[in-house]
């Protein structure tokens, strides 16, 4: 316990930072160009719930796939019959930007997330298992790479 930092610590730090920078570079390359036509992909519980063009303004109510929260009221067994959902998110697409305006979860992280407008960006709501992401319209390969 004589020293706060040893040689091995510094090596470990350098290795970790190198992994981090490499991951940043790889993830940065995967982001497409902001100019290409993009679509908004809304995934709920791992499967695609809906896909909309980013250019069209709309408001979407996304029900949570499985009502599994322990914090809220217990779900209604006849939920599918009623139009009301116990757990849902409201996604707003407006002027080329996407945000979550309403969420039934406790922490509201998705609501406080700033709105997204570029391919590769996403908003996630873990309690409701929602992923809203923007993807470039053309699939397969890089259309362009920006730094």
């Amino acid at each position: 316990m004589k020293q706060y930092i040893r040689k091995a610590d510094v090596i470990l730090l350098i290795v970790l930072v190198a992994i981090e920078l490499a991951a940043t570079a790889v993830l940065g390359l995967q982001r497409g160009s902001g100019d290409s036509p993009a679509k908004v992909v809304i995934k709920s519980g791992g499967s695609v719930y809906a896909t909309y063009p980013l250019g069209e303004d709309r408001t979407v109510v996304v029900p949570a796939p499985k009502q599994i929260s322990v914090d809220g009221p217990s779900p209604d067994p006849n939920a599918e019959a009623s139009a009301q959902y116990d757990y849902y998110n409201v996604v707003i697409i407006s002027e080329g930007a996407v945000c979550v305006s309403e969420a039934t979860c406790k922490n509201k992280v998705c609501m406080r997330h700033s709105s997204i407008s570029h391919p590769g960006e996403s908003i996630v709501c873990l309690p409701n298992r929602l992923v809203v992401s923007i993807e470039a319209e053309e699939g397969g390969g890089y259309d362009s790479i920006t730094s």
Partner: protein
Amino acid sequence: MTASPRSSSSLGNSFIARVGLMAALALIFSYVEAIIPYSASLPGIKLGIANVVTVIALYKFGVKDAIAVSIIRIVIAGLLFNGLFGMIYSLAGAALSLAGMIALKRTGLFSVTGVSMAAGVLHNMGQLIIASALIEDLRIFFYFPMLMFSGIVAGILVGIASTIIIKSIK
């Protein structure tokens, strides 16, 4: 753990008292952590001050104490402040970071700071893996570099704090 059987031959009385004391201390740190206002746009980025207790338990009393203290702390903190999801993420992070800490400590090459730094990173990785499994979308790994950076910084700070405390409670 509160309802420990009277015929607990494997769990000595001093072990139970010591772990109970450390778990209570760690729980207070968890509470302090829960009331600190962190940035809402960066979920998952925390200091993890309760891990000071885990690191000290590992270095002063051994593997068994460290594991017991973290499990008790996370389960009770989950019930009290963090919710069920927070508990699941914390347990996954703690499992990975404890395994890493025990392994790195055994090598004898690293200081408390280095071990804690690795633990900080592994803790965040464990949470990220659980999050990606729950949400069934690897897109969440876009968050990887940010979490890794915060894990390094938090781990170093926790490690330095732990080193100071370990020195003074000799």
